């Protein structure tokens, strides 16, 4: 009996899913809600692309909370291989088992490649039954992995099975919801993209960002939240090498709350701008007059 995603009320319609996301503190845009809904219902992976810090990873976490599913996270990096992502043999145990068999004179242990010697890593864990809960598999920053890894991933994502040479093919006892995220530092290959539905997550508009700030940092007063969001909208129109994302906004708001601010002023912004802008050239290009102007506009 293959464990699939449950017939959850949140999965009845796009609107229901949107409402559930909102209820859990994630503010989606219509394109994302639709893409996520379709991905879940069609059992296809969802590829989320966007700049760093716009909330791609958050989607998976919220989804797991909504569906009461196990969140299995695979963080990708260059050179990530089968052993870290899929499975690995417990070599020490194998060698010991061989030695023990030999020493005790028992029948030769011919096959050390049994399931008991297999260490399950995220991809394998995602498709094995676990404790019967459904699973959300988050493959984070797939653009940092390389071609070989993508090729391997293709097999897992198309047929939800993993071929282990010594053991055979492990087929899915559980079909997870799959979300891949990418910061676009590399173009994902077409073969993988073809398997997925796609959504681009952009920097949020004012209203949306305001709601996010109010949800995540309730300690910030109404005035501060508004001014912060206005400031961010203006800041993102500047010619910066790296525009600040939502996570930067939230960090900054937190910092301002910790510093006891109820509103923005030029001095505090100048001192805390490092929460938002983290590149030297960007900091240099934001001259004091520019910052002052932005603060003024944000407070109108």
């Amino acid at each position, binding site marked *: 009996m293959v464990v699939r995603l449950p017939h959850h009320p949140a999965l009845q319609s796009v609107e229901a899913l949107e409402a559930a996301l909102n209820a859990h503190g994630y503010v989606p845009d219509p394109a994302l809600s639709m893409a996520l809904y379709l991905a879940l219902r069609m059992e296809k992976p969802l590829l989320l692309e966007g700049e760093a810090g716009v909330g791609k990873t958050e989607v998976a976490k919220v989804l797991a909370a909504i569906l009461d599913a196990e969140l299995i996270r695979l963080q990708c990096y260059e050179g990530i291989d089968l052993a870290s992502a899929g499975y690995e043999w417990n070599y020490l145990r194998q060698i010991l088992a*061989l030695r023990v068999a030999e020493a005790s004179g028992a029948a030769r242990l011919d096959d050390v490649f049994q399931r008991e010697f297999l260490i399950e890593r995220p991809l394998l864990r995602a498709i094995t039954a676990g404790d019967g809960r459904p699973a959300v598999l988050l493959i984070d920053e797939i653009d940092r992995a390389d071609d070989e890894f993508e090729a391997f991933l293709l097999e897992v994502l198309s047929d939800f099975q993993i071929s282990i040479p010594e053991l055979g093919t492990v087929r899915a006892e559980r079909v997870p919801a799959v979300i891949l995220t990418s910061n676009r530092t590399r173009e994902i290959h077409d073969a993988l993209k073809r398997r997925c539905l796609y959504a681009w997550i952009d920097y949020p508009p004012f209203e949306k960002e305001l709601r996010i700030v109010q949800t995540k940092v309730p300690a910030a007063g109404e005035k501060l939240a508004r001014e912060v969001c206005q400031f961010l909208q203006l800041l993102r129109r500047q010619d910066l090498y790296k525009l600040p994302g939502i996570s930067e906004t939230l960090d900054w708001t937190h910092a301002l709350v910790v510093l006891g601010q109820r509103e923005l002023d030029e001095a505090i912004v100048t001192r805390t701008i490092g929460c938002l802008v983290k590149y030297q050239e960007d900091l240099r290009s934001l001259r004091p007059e520019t910052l002052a102007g932005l603060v003024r506009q944000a407070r109108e």
Partner: protein
Amino acid sequence: MTAPLLSPALLTRNLVVFGRVLRASGIAVDPGQLVDVQRALALITPTDAPQFYYAARAVFVRRLEELPLFDRAFALFWSELARRDLLPDFPSPDGRREDVVIPLPPEPEEPVLAGMTEEPSGKRPAGAAATVQEHAGTDELAPPREQVVPIRTYSAAERLRQKDFGHLTPAELEEARTLLQQLRWQVGRRRARRTHPAFGVGPGRGLHWRATVRTSLRAAGELTRLAWRVPKTKPRPLVILGDISGSMDRYTRLLLQFFYAVRRGRSEVEVFVFGTRLTRITRDLEHRNVEEAMRRVAAHILDWSGGTRIGAALRTFNRQWARRVLSRGAVTIVVSDGWDRGEAELLRTEIARLQRTSFRLIWLNPLLGDAQYQPLTVGMQTALPYVDDFLPAHNLASLTDLARRLSDLEQRRPLRRMHR
């Protein structure tokens, strides 16, 4: 209950038409997507345009750049449906159900390009036949025009290699092109994080357990041979930024061939050209047929032989592309004579950044072929401190040298002065 948007009978056909509209707009569409979009529509039974739009978008759009193309195609498609009254109210006015025939967007016109005249092609059998026809009346034994590339002696070949690109005759140009295509392009390799097992070598990155245990099985668990994890090497990515402004005119034709040759051999090469704007021509150069590739490039570029704004072009590159193509220790090659009409400060900032984010920054200057050349222009002077290798690119010999240099790249980053 609101009526379903499009009758199922027509839906499939209309989706196929929509697929064609998308293809004409430049978005690749495969049959799998058509199946997917039908499934999607069945799941959500759209009752208005936005739902249809978002569902189709989730399936058809695969990258950010396709989004505006998709929007346009969708708008076209939808307005056509509306025009034929195929939205909520069925059937169409005269009572019959019609298929939707969407007029495809017009083919983009190929701009007339200054400075890029048609080269006489080396192969033209049709032309040869025509020649024969023409002469049929006068002299039936007149041979067709010679199409064979003359075989040169060694010294002649050497002379060709040394001859400046700007001075080549059309026939020599043709030969040079052929020779360019034959150059082998290998870029120095970098150590990747991926490893593979190897026996009998040093510790590398630790034991390769799987290979070790498997080998030990033959000896009932005795670790007779140890396998080590040795890092794989991968070729470095290469990024080319070529100046195609007026001052580079003499060299542009051949240099494009050079870019094509480099691109053909390898997978991780990105090619951009700039004049007053930056254009990515990597995809255009992917064609098997070199002439077709050149044609596409010509169609794509809008700022041939105009002015140069190197700083602005580099800034566009740094902001929009650098993060995507310069990771993994890429080598960047800028091909330009350094004649620049933009601001020097901008150029300085951007080339400094470019150097920092590249493993190695090479500047190829065709003018360096002239022994008398001194880099006195403001552009060149500004850029020079931030360049790791300043090399000529005026003839085949210089490009061959470049090929050799690239394959012998040092493993370490070049030592760079700290700039303010």
